[in-house]
């Protein structure tokens, strides 16, 4: 029996509500439950989840809606009470820690308190993101836009606008960044250093920065552009401005550029710009197998290689082709029917990298995957569980292991599975103990296979550093206890899996061609853009955890507890706009 409880005017962040939903699901007697704000989009999610009720229709975007399925009605009050206690604990926790923090609720106040912040982080619901980005740009802020679901037309328009104002728009859908050594959104803590990064890929940046850190070097600024920046409509506006910025940053010695292959129309421009850089550049166009380096512009195939070439260049060493350490093949005895590798990833770029390596090495000629299924050919499978299709109404797999556990269990039961690949992504925004969350399932999956006479290797890499808020070495120990083969990075993990199934990756060193001429001039860099490189103060609009990450890392962030204007009521929004502009002398 479905029941609906509506808490009027009780705006909660969606991540908090998803965690709350997970918690409520564990309560005895609760068959199904979902807690979300009453936006039209969320109502659809309720409906598709089989939780449509009449009362739900009356909820507004400012109302918190609980729809729960319980057989015993007496439980409703108890569930609501527990939900409130949970939310209170959440808010009390942060209140206690940050009683003196800076917190605002309106733009006016935000711009007053954070007038000295050169960067605004925006993580509001997608439908509102474009408007809020525009406000931040109008206020002269560089913008890091975590929000997604912004149209590509808006993205192009806003990036052009930012460019004309001498500002940078990172994103939309920018998952990670490092500014002046401070973590932005889902980022790892890495030491500061002389490698500057521009990337159109979230976990790609995380993997490369983490490897650089492990090699003893560091990254002071890693600029995310959002995944569509190098598409024809957007023309790489942010990519180009970022390259120019890093090229003129006196603290940067080597530039790393990470992207999916640029659109044909943008490609020459982008590559020419990399050639025009005064500093050595390492570029990786994910999915593309490079054929040659050029002097000054070096090309990598994997993220590992990207990091290692960059560190080599920093030490004055050109790529040798030996950047990829030969993989040690663990001693695993597979049954004849065990042929297929299954990759269950929380990081999209890591999944993509795995799919690329498998596709090329095994000669699968698989089509580009859709909807989170990055590779699906014969029995080979690589899933990006962070894709929208898997995250509708549930937390991201870096926070919540439920989906991954399900996938692992079913793969473990499949007698043709030869190996399971996993990524454990540490850093801000991810859960405290992913290895611990997965441990029991890994042990069970391996034991079940063993009971049927199969050895089933589980291979994992930990994307993170010893500076991350999680305990890196504890994660390693937990995985080792579960019998996981732990690899230094994702490329190593995939290569290990491929070696186990009898298809080791063959390395061929690339020739280094002479410097190629460039037809473009580096764009000029405004002072406002340069301020980003040394930013210590931020305006965080939306998810509070992003402000906490900055504050914990030695920066300071003003927290803007954002709500949709006028509760999302369009008529009132128009009336307010009218009143704000009306000329009382003449009327409008």
């Amino acid at each position, binding site marked *: 029996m479905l029941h609906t409880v509506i808490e009027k*005017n009780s*705006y909660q962040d969606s991540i908090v509500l998803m965690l709350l939903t997970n918690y409520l699901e564990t309560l005895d007697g609760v068959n199904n439950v979902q807690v979300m704000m009453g936006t039209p989009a969320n109502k659809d999610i309720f409906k598709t989840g089989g939780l449509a009720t009449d009362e739900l229709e009356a909820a507004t975007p*400012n109302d918190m809606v609980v729809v729960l399925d319980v057989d015993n009605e007496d439980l409703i009050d108890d569930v609501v009470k527990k939900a409130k206690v949970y939310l209170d604990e959440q808010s009390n926790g942060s*209140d206690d820690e940050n*009683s003196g923090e800076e*917190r*605002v*609720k*309106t733009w*006016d*106040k935000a711009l007053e308190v954070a007038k000295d912040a050169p960067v605004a982080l925006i993580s509001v619901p997608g439908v509102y993101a474009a408007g809020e980005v525009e406000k931040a740009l109008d206020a002269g802020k560089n913008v890091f836009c975590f929000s997604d679901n912004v149209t590509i037309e808006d993205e192009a328009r806003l990036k052009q606008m930012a460019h004309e104002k001498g500002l940078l728009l990172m994103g939309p859908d920018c998952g990670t960044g490092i500014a002046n050594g401070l973590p932005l959104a889902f980022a790892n803590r890495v030491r500061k250093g002389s490698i500057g990064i521009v990337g159109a890929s979230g976990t790609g940046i995380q993997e490369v920065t983490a490897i650089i850190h492990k090699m003893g070097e560091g990254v002071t600024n890693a600029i995310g552009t959002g995944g569509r920046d190098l598409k024809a409509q957007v023309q790489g506006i942010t990519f180009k401005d970022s390259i120019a910025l890093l090229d003129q940053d006196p603290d940067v010695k080597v530039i790393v550029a990470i992207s999916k292959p640029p659109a044909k129309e943008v490609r020459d421009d982008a590559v020419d710009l990399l050639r025009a850089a005064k500093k050595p550049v390492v570029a990786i166009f994910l999915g593309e197998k490079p054929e040659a380096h050029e002097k000054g512009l070096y090309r990598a195939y994997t993220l590992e290689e990207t990091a290692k070439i960059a560190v080599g260049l920093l030490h004055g060493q050109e790529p040798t082709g030996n950047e990829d350490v030969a993989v040690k093949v663990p001693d695993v005895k597979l049954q004849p029917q065990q042929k297929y590798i299954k990759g269950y990833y929380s990081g999209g770029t890591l999944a993509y990298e795995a799919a690329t390596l498998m596709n090329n090495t095994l000669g699968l000629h698989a089509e580009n995957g859709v909807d989170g299924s990055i590779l699906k050919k014969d029995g080979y499978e690589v899933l990006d569980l962070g894709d929208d299709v898997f995250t509708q109404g549930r937390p991201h797999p870096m926070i919540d292991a439920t989906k991954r556990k399900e996938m692992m269990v079913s793969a473990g039961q499949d007698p043709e599975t030869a190996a399971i690949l996993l990524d454990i992504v540490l850093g801000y925004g991810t859960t405290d103990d992913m290895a611990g969350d997965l441990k029991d399932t890994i042990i069970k999956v391996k034991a079940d296979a063993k009971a049927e006479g199969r050895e089933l290797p589980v291979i994992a890499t930990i994307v993170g550093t010893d500076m991350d808020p999680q305990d890196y070495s504890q994660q390693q120990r937990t995985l080792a206890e579960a019998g996981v083969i732990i690899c230094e990075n994702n490329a190593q993990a995939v290569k290990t899996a491929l070696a186990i199934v009898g298809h080791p990756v063959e390395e061929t060193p690339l020739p280094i061609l002479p410097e190629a001429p460039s037809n473009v001039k580096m764009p000029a860099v405004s002072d406002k853009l340069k301020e980003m490189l040394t930013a210590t103060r931020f305006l965080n609009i939306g998810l509070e955890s992003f402000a906490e990450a900055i504050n914990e890392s030695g920066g300071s962030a003003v927290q803007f507890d954002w*709500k949709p*204007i*006028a*509760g999302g*009521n369009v*008529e*009132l929004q*128009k*009336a*307010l706009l*009218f*009143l*704000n502009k*009306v*000329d*009382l*002398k003449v*009327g*409008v």
Partner: protein
Amino acid sequence: MVYKSIDEANQAVVSKIIAGSPFLLDVVPAIDVIDEFKHGKVLLHAGPPITYDKMIDPVQGACIGAAMFEGWADNEDDARKLMESGEVTLIPCHHVDAVGPMGGITSAHMPVVVVENRTDGNRAYCTMNEGIGAVLRFGANGPEVIDRLRWMRDVLGPVLSKALQTREPLNVSALIAKAIAMGDEFHQRNIAASLAFLKEMSPSIVALDIDQKDKEDVIQFLADTDQFFLNIMMASAKSVMDGARQIQEGTIVTAMCRNGYEFGIRIAGMGDEWFTGPVNTPHGLYFSGFSEDDASPDMGDSAITETFGVGGFAMIAAPAVTRFVGTGGFFDALHTSEDMTEITTASNPNFPIPTWDFRGISIGIDARKVVETGILPVINTGIANKKAGLGQIGAGTVNPPMEAFEKAVLAYAKKLGFEE
């Protein structure tokens, strides 16, 4: 005066609030200063207009008490019949330059304080605080209540009036500034201001050539009544806000009040028009034995204090009562006051709050900002028993309904030519 933009008009209204200078002149029977009482049987009530049948039990109870006090009936049943007959005209206090606490029921012969805003020359009135326990404002109407009202009419009012005539009019702003530094926020806590008032008045009272017993009774009553200053504060806030709303442009809220049924607000640009929504029930702490189930819906004109920038808006000035009104403590009070700065237009430098690093109280609630941000004003309030006559059962905070602000914003936009 014509303003270019709403911001400019709002600034002008706010300047008038800052310039407001309320002085307590006198205490007189309501009928002496409010002409409406001269036309038949009239009662004033708190909040926006309402009919008797819609009044909640405590407010009806207060009407019955007032009817007996005025001698229109000598027992409760007759008084109730009289009220139900419709013979008694009900007028909102706000319509006759007055404000009234809780039920706000005011009758012709109740003494009212007379406060003049010397900046704009207008006056405002409010009954005097009856103390705690069984009191008319919470709907009690037994003999004890009526007797006290008679004493206030026959002794307290005249004595204070005489004392005030022997001295300069009392500068209320000076009292407010002193008491805010002593931890009053003037809605839930008025003890410092009440003591300061007693300090100001007692030399004049003891010097009067009147019956010694009356003197002692008056001094004792003032000494016992921690909230005595609240009603003076309300009249003062009303006088200042009425002065400010002589400017009939802009979106500054010029009154907030409730009648137990509806919450009403006015904004400068819409003059006398009320914008209403259903009242909420306060949240807070209850005296032992009572719970939210016993609570009466929100009532009273006392939210004029918040409109003026004190009460819930100055919560941080009174850390001592933050727990009593149901908030967690100092930092919750700080957050509440900080939140209120998001929907207000300026600070009033005349009333700096020491616990807020001497920042002035937040003034000029902008209805636009309330609608835009979804942040509702926080009103500190006493909580009445929903049954008449059982008095106060707790204290807490309450929000106005968003609907009232939305209606006001839309109406003003339409008045200025907004079409959907």
